[in-house]
């Protein structure tokens, strides 16, 4: 085990796969200089300007180029600097990348990864802070992954690169500096597996990415209130490990989701729907979603902190609902 920051783990994951497979190429804006979040330090120096290739500010060209290359033998990684910028190339992502395998009846495979810095907590305002996992989730043909810690940042990224389908890989930008142990040597995690991080008999809290450490903290505080909570890290939204999630819901009889996204159509709504449909008789109370309100995320620190789910809000909501 080595202690790495989340951003170092991202670079380590890419390096591991580029060293292993000469067909892995990495393109994006300013990546030669390691990107604005310094999540790819050392790659340009190690792999050179052909395999780590700077692009113009042309998100449609970036995703289009990655797609054309993936169709014809490469395994590209494309960086979209902020997930908000996916809106400038959503045709490429949602209409082209997602649908072409299906429309051509499997004549082409699209083994490509779109990495992007996602989410709030950095006071950047509403156009550089969105949590957009649900955009990807809404489009058949896209896999959607969002790690919560450095080990998963490396392992799931490697898994995404080896996957033969297009993967949207969301890196929550407030996690970049977080440190954690990462297994030595080759580290690859398969997509589509949730992880139970903590078990308790009273309720199940399901969280994603930066909401995971908050859910863990809240659960620790709830224990002091006499409420024992299970915490599940979803890790992969498409494919989603409903087996693990529902098994924990059944054990505790209560389900809470903690989502950074604005309220409507967040991933938690899908999980709530599945739980209501498939384990209604095991539920002992309402399913409760804890989300950012349905507003564009404000910039000021006090406003952003109050808008996003906090440890205190998770704890208060669960305690209130469990009374």
């Amino acid at each position, binding site marked *: 085990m080595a202690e790495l920051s989340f951003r170092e783990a991202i670079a380590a994951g890419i390096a591991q796969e580029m060293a292993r497979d000469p067909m892995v190429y990495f393109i994006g804006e300013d990546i030669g200089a390691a990107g604005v979040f310094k999540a790819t330090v050392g790659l340009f120096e190690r792999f050179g300007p052909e395999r780590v290739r700077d692009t113009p500010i042309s998100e449609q*060209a970036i995703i289009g180029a990655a797609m054309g290359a993936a169709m014809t033998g490469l395994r590209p990684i494309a960086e979209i600097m902020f997930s908000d910028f996916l809106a400038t190339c959503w045709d490429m992502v949602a209409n082209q990348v997602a649908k072409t395998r299906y429309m*051509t009846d499997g004549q082409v495979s699209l083994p490509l990864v779109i990495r992007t810095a996602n989410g709030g907590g950095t006071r950047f305002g509403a156009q550089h802070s969105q949590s957009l996992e649900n955009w990807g989730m809404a489009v058949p043909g896209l896999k959607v992954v969002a790690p919560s810690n450095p080990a998963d940042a490396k392992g799931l990224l490697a898994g995404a690169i080896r996957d033969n389908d297009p993967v949207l890989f969301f890196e929550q930008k407030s996690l970049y500096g977080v440190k954690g142990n990462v297994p030595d040597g080759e580290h690859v995690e398969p997509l589509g597996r949730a992880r139970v991080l903590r078990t308790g008999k009273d309720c199940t809290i399901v969280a994603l990415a930066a909401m995971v450490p908050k859910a863990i903290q809240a659960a620790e505080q709830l224990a002091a209130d006499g409420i024992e909570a299970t915490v599940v890290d979803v890790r992969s939204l498409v494919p989603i490990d409903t087996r693990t999630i529902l098994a924990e819901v059944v054990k505790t009889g209560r389900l809470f989701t903690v989502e950074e996204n604005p309220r409507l159509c967040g991933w938690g709504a899908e999980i709530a729907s599945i739980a209501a449909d498939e384990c209604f008789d095991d539920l002992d109370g309402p399913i409760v979603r804890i989300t950012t309100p349905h507003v564009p995320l404000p910039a000021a620190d006090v406003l952003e902190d109050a808008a996003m789910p906090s440890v205190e809000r998770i704890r208060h909501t669960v305690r209130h609902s469990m009374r």
Partner: protein
Amino acid sequence: MSTQVGKPAAADVDRPTRLRLYQLMVELRDFEQRAYELFLENLVRGTSHLALGQEAIAAGFAVAMRPDDYTFCTYRGHDHTLARGASMAAAMAELLGRGNGMLHGKGGSMHLTDVTHGAMGSYAIVGAHLPIAAGAAWSAQVRKSGQVAVCFFGDGTTNIGAFHEALNLAVVWKLPVVFVCENNQYMEYTPIRSVTAVEHPAADRASAYGLEPILLDGNDADVMFETARQTIGKAREGGGPSLVEALTYRHGGHSRADPAKYRPDAEVREWLSRDPVKRYRERLLAGGISEGELNEIETRAQQKVDAATEEARNGAPAGVDEIERQVWSDGGASWRN
């Protein structure tokens, strides 16, 4: 200062190539004509965008391409897909929504694709496939495969962002790609000149990307073949991308729902007199190829289209088990366990 219509140097096309060009154009013409008839019989559902009148571009480029080169085209893509050698019966069956269709009914008229023949897809969002073609060219470049990507699009595409992003990237990365604007004078129902800042929507923009303006008669199969040979050759040798504007005209409307009444009669008559198939036939006759030889080509093309139509019509409707196939690389559509 507007670009002038040019001619490629030394359009000296040999006899077998000329016969091949004519055969291909006749087949494409007959296929599209049949597709239109089947639409009138209400057998072609959904929409279709015919390329009647634009055959010289598809034929000229396809004949000049290497079998492993890549074609990217638009929803007006029947010609470009067939020109690469894709099965006519499978294409027709796809138009009819049959299980023996090229895409088993999952793509339809606007998405014909046959990767085994280098037909890498028909793209139905204007402009999207230009960056994708650049990506295939990038892949060919780094794999050092010598392949070239040829990307066909309409005049309307020159006003969308993806056109400009793709052109810039292709030049900066010196990619082996040829962008071919089929300027048929109308975006959908609107004359392209009334919504474009320059007279020649592609050629007049070439200089913005450091490219030579190439403006040509797209209804002349020899000109198209020779242009294709030169631009593809340049790309294959590492000379980077080209942008070609081929002037042409669609004989019908934008799509099957469009009677094209917005076009002045005199303009339509003028362009019909420049029909690429008829013109080429006259040129071949003048060049010493016999009427009998041309008749035989025409008869064989009709037979091929008849056989394809028969096979397509005899196909069973697409199977509903196709719905949840091929979303993912494991062949299925599962998103949960």
